């Protein structure tokens, strides 16, 4: 795993007229995981997008070292294509990573068009895309949505393994999730 670091300083985020949070700082090194808690609409997704560099914060700075993998509610897999082909596109971009499809419960679904997959199956497919990317920093936005109990355990296991290998995981979730170290912040503490 490449050297990785994720730090944010004095972040504030404004959406429309609303100041969502301010004064947020965090610092994650290799092997560390952090859960971001908070009610719906409090700014968890915005924080993830700011940390990924896809959204500019109102104030504050983000520093990243290492490649970033993002998992959010959009699977980024073409709905009309069979799952195998849709994943194949990202595989060609990312190089031959090894997402163990059987372990994700996807091995029988490769010929099924993505739009016929259930919510949970789509989430598993997006996880396969994330694993194939072999990014050092994982930013997971509500990774448990739509997953059954076995799926939840699977995500916890994947994150634990990622951290053991020296990766960083930041998980935004309103549901309880067992992360290595068990660190968590609540965005409600940073609301304006």
């Amino acid at each position, binding site marked *: 795993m490449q050297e990785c670091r994720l730090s944010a300083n004095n972040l504030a985020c404004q959406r429309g007229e609303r100041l969502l949070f301010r004064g947020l700082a965090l610092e994650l090194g290799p092997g560390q995981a952090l859960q971001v808690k908070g009610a719906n609409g409090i700014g968890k997704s915005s924080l993830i997008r700011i940390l*990924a560099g*896809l959204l*500019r914060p109102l104030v504050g700075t983000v520093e990243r070292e290492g490649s970033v993998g*993002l998992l959010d509610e959009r699977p980024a897999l*073409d709905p009309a294509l069979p799952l195998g*082909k849709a994943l194949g596109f990202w595989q*060609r*971009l*990312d190089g031959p990573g090894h997402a163990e499809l059987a372990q994700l419960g996807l091995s029988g679904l490769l010929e099924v*068009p993505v739009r016929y997959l259930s919510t949970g199956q789509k989430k598993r497919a997006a996880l396969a895309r994330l694993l194939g990317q072999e990014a050092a920093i994982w930013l997971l936005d509500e990774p448990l949505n739509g997953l059954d109990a076995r799926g939840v355990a699977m995500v916890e296991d994947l994150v634990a393994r990622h951290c053991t290998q020296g990766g960083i995981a930041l998980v935004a979730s309103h549901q309880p999730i067992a992360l290595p170290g068990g660190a968590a912040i609540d965005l409600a503490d940073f609301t304006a």
Partner: protein
Amino acid sequence: MRHFLILLRRDLGLLLGGERRGATLLPVLFFLAVAMLYPFAVGPDAPVLARTGGGVLWIAALLAAILPLDRLVEPDLELGVFDQLALRGISEELAMSARMLAHWLSFAPALMLAALPASALVGIDAATLKTVELGLLAGTPGLAALGVLVAALTAGLRGGAALGGLLVIPLAVPLLVFGAGSLSTGGAAGIVLTAAFSLVLWAITPFAAGAAIRSARGQ
């Protein structure tokens, strides 16, 4: 370059292949339908048809190029594909270049082929057909670029597809003026100007469309 080819392969697959193959044929069928309807509307006056037929083919080509507009950028924006590409260091400009080329490949060659039977339907002679074909060769890259540009600008807006179609038409006027204008002068000058306009569009579209997608993301 490797990334460009991977993107192009995906875009071509989505625009040409798979389950939406019917949607790819649609612009061509639309183009042929206009060419077929025109003599019915104008009447069987051969000289009038021959004089105006080339221009009608141009208008039909323009409208046919607008049809796939809503599939060009919007779906990928909704799926988060551009975000995932950005995380991998692949710029929106590169993605838009590939999209532009794929869009052109998906409709222009088929349209130029369909111009052969269409020319018979509107009754234009071989020399005019040659001018139309050369004009389309010079003009369709510009139409493809315009399509991607406007699709990127209107992606994420409500009713963006209809608005996009409306926006392309005035922007395509120079292409039409020079392209169809070459029919009356019969000269290469109009075609060269059409090609020049296409080149300008081809050059600015990746940057303008890329910027549009980045700003759509910031909201």
